[in-house]
């Protein structure tokens, strides 16, 4: 329903609910109708208070499609094959020729390619649109960004187990990412979720196994990388 229609419905319910409540109580002395009027008022208030559909959702989807296509081209050019690392400050490090974990104490994020004793890493900026506070609740941060801001899935659940997080996305949107994108970064909803998780935890995170279960759910393992020394 368009937003104007929702506003009109809410206004109609509010006015009719108020009229019904007052008239039923004072004029008709009917308790059931008064209760019904109160119910209509609560319903109207709920519609008004519900988070509205963002008019920029289509624009965001279009930008994300372009992002996916551009990153896929870059990954293809560099022949990236290894799962990327997500840093707490919003960067994605794609191992090009690297062994072991990077030393992030010397990482500045200014160059396209970061080199350190462990090898070379392609540096990308993660698409996390809002500032995620370090120490924030991971599931709440994921719901805010992945579900409500970007509309990448209908809901998200996180279960922590030691240094691994099991992420469950319900009905994630498909962006037809290429095989290399999925291998290095994961499907786009998982890619964004990993970036948000790294920012919320304040730790380096890597996407592990990603599985599509039945009923439109995707389960992904996010591993906290212990050995990446951080600045």
């Amino acid at each position, binding site marked *: 329903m368009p937003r104007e229609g929702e506003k009109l419905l809410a206004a109609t319910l509010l006015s009719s609910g108020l009229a019904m409540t007052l008239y039923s109580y004072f004029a008709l002395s009917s*308790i059931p109708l008064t*209760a019904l009027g109160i119910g209509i008022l609560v319903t109207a208030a709920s519609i008004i208070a*519900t*988070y509205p559909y963002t008019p920029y959702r289509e624009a965001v989807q279009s930008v994300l499609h372009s992002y996916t296509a551009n990153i896929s081209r870059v990954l293809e050019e560099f022949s990236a094959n290894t799962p990327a690392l997500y840093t707490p400050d919003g960067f994605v490090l794609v191992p090009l020729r690297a062994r072991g974990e990077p030393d992030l104490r010397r990482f500045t994020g200014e160059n396209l390619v970061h080199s350190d004793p462990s090898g070379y890493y392609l540096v990308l900026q993660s698409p996390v649109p809002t500032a995620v506070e370090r120490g924030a609740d991971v599931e709440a941060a994921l719901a805010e960004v992945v579900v409500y801001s970007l509309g990448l899935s209908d809901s998200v659940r996180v279960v922590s187990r030691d240094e691994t997080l099991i992420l469950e996305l319900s009905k994630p949107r498909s962006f037809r990412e290429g095989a290399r994108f999925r291998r290095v970064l994961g499907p786009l909803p998982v890619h964004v979720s990993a970036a948000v998780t790294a920012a919320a935890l304040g730790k380096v995170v890597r996407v592990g196994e990603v599985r599509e279960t039945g009923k439109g759910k995707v389960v992904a393992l996010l591993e906290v990388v212990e050995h990446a020394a951080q600045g």
Partner: protein
Amino acid sequence: MLLKDRLFNVLLPLLYAVTVYSLASLGEQRLDAYFSMLVLEYFVLYALLRPKRRHRDYIALVLIALFSVVVAFRVLEVIGR
């Protein structure tokens, strides 16, 4: 709105209608009984569907405050007997 937000706004009035009809059929004439059921249903449905709100859930705050007042009056009535 997401589907679950719409579902909340559809199920809530349906539940209210069923509740009011049921209690009215039983001859219930106490407004606080109706109100208590409406508040309970709001919170149960909210816990199940968790609709996203623009700001804090002020509806819940108002309902809980009014519910407390209703319960307080009822308790005073019982004590006063």
